[in-house]
């Protein structure tokens, strides 16, 4: 009864009324979808924000470095042109510290005084003298990095309340340091060394130059190999290969390569590049080759998906005016697929930039105090450098690790910037 009457009334409703009746619900659904979407993005961005914020909060301190200004008399007795580059530079530095604190005596005391200056100070001085021999015999004022514990002290990372024996700096040293600060000899300029120095055991000297150059070379190699080969393979598979067992096999293969753990690529590189071809361990060239093996499946899969999305009518149009299949692909399909390809490239290279595991196996986690010049020189990469620093006991590396990650992210953003610009240019709806 009721059923019948119900259906009667609803049958009496016009379509417009039915639409209107359902509309509130549908609008709600849309709002929900929109809300979900926004919260999904919000979540993802929030996570990134938390990551970056936590990095910044620990890392920002590494962007400055405490320096000590000292007046040095380059005593010709200690330093002579003949004995360069060796010579008593540390003694000269000690002497100038002693001039400020004349009442310090005894070997141990003097050592604990000079430990305010970084171990690199003597080499900085030496390099100046080597560059200009005439400095010998003069008194010069130089600004040298303070050693890590004092850098920490200046930045307030050392709690002066902790019992003395638990601190790396004792009360006497703090007193000296404060005295220096009062004389205005302590400054905290921007830490360019973080980018211009190579790695070092001493946090105050350690920099990312080697890792930056290493990552640059590795990624360049990776890009030069993975991008053309990936696109070539994808075009072949998507546009030219006949659908048969062989192409299926290749397809499955490529998808499978994407799932191969990155360590296994490291193993492969170890066996092939280092073993067979006898390439150098730790070389960015090898790193780049290894990373390109990892990146290639990503680019291939992305490219294929993008090619697939180009509507067939465009292909027909081009074929119809007598373009060859390669011309169709290179003139029409590829440009339209470019946004997708670039997305794959961006993500693939981003991954390659952040990848650690395979580099560990080919020795790109080495400690090297000079930056590489060529892709065949031994080097580290940014993620392995981060890995090494994160594992270093010295306190100064805690903030430097975060800073290094931030530098890597900046590197990543710059690198992606170009690709994203291109992608936006290529993107259009048709």
């Amino acid at each position, binding site marked *: 009864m009721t059923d019948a009457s119900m259906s009667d009334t609803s049958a009496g409703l016009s379509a417009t009324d039915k639409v209107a009746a359902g509309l509130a619900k549908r609008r709600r659904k849309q709002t929900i979808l929109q809300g979900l979407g926004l919260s999904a993005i919000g979540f993802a961005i929030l996570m990134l924000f938390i990551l970056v914020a936590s990095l910044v909060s620990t890392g920002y301190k590494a962007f400055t470095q405490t320096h000590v200004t000292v007046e040095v008399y380059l005593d010709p007795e200690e330093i002579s042109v003949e004995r360069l580059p060796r010579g008593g530079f540390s003694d000269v530095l000690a002497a100038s510290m002693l001039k400020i604190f004349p009442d310090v005596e005894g070997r141990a005391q003097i050592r604990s005084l000079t430990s305010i200056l970084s171990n690199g100070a003597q080499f900085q001085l030496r390099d100046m003298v080597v560059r200009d021999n005439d400095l010998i015999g003069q008194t010069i004022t130089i600004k040298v990095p303070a050693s890590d514990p004092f850098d920490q002290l200046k930045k307030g990372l050392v709690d002066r309340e902790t019992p003395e024996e638990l601190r790396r700096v004792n009360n006497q040293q703090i007193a000296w340091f404060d005295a220096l600060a009062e004389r205005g000899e302590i400054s905290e300029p921007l830490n360019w060394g973080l980018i211009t120095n190579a790695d070092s055991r001493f946090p105050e000297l350690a920099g990312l130059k080697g890792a930056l150059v290493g990552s640059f070379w590795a990624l360049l190699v990776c890009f030069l190999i993975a991008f053309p080969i990936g696109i070539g393979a994808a075009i072949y598979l998507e546009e030219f290969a006949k659908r048969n067992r062989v192409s299926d096999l290749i397809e499955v293969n490529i998808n499978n390569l994407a799932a191969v753990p990155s360590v296994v690529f490291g193993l492969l590189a170890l066996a092939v590049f280092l073993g067979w071809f006898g390439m150098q361990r730790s070389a960015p060239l090898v790193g780049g080759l290894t990373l390109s093996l990892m990146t290639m499946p990503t680019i291939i899969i992305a490219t294929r998906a993008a090619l697939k999305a180009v509507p*067939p*009518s*465009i292909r027909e149009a081009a074929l*119809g*005016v007598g373009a060859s299949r390669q011309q169709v692909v290179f003139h*029409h399909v590829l440009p339209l697929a470019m946004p997708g390809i670039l997305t794959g490239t961006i993500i693939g290279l981003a991954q390659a930039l952040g990848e650690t595991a395979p580099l560990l196996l080919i020795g790109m986690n080495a400690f090297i105090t000079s930056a590489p010049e060529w892709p065949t020189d031994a080097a580290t990469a940014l993620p392995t450098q981060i890995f090494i620093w994160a594992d270093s006991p010295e306190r100064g590396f805690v903030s430097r690790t975060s800073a290094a990650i931030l530098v890597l992210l900046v590197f990543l953003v710059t690198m992606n910037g170009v690709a994203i610009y291109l992608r936006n240019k290529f993107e259009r709806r048709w």
Partner: protein
Amino acid sequence: MYDVPTNMESNVEQQDIKISARKVQVYYGTNHAIKDVDCEIQDKTVTAFIGPSGCGKSTFLRCLNRMNDSIDICRIEGDITIDGQDIYDKRVDPVQLRAKVGMVFQKPNPFPKSIYDNVAYGPRIHGLAKNKADLDVIVERSLRRAAIWEEVKDRLDGPGTGLSGGQQQRLCIARAVATEPEVLLMDEPCSALDPIATSQVEELIDELRQEYSVVIVTHSMQQAARVSQKTAFFHLGHLVEYGDTGKIFTNPVDSRTESYITGRIG
């Protein structure tokens, strides 16, 4: 029944055979779309394909320049020769074939490029222009022939996809004639055109006929009667009747043909 222009009869002189199809069968998967079609298309002649929607006109047309190659599920049997050469022969380069046999598609499909580039594309890849000036000339002439020059001359670098439906259709015609094919296949080229534009395109067809062979699919009997010298009537995948236009429209042999042109079957 239809006004067949009187000057036409005189045109129906025996021309060389340009395209000849023997026992052509086309299957889309299991759907048998073209059944046993034999047909000879003459040079310097306009041939019209008519028939109800879905009877296989487009399909057969697309066989003539191997456009069906790009549809995975499509399978073709039988022989089609152009100038005596089997176009499905392995040695035939479909690219060259398509340069020779141009096509205007049923649904206008401009490239997502500028209007200029749309037209210039064919001449560029075929090296028809020596330099930019040459190319400009070709583009302008093609657009004029397709009766769209006036409308687009100020926006040649605007996107081809930003045109109205009829403009897109004419752009595609311009694109096809720009490469000067020997045979031009036109799949309902005037479906989105107003009467004036239609008559301009018909003029173009008539002009092309002086040198080339034109095949046109149309739903308008008037149009078929106006422009074509030969007419082929398709029905349910069969080529029911093929002959001089005048004869088909005035005195069809097959009863189905008659029913169709008098508007009784669809």
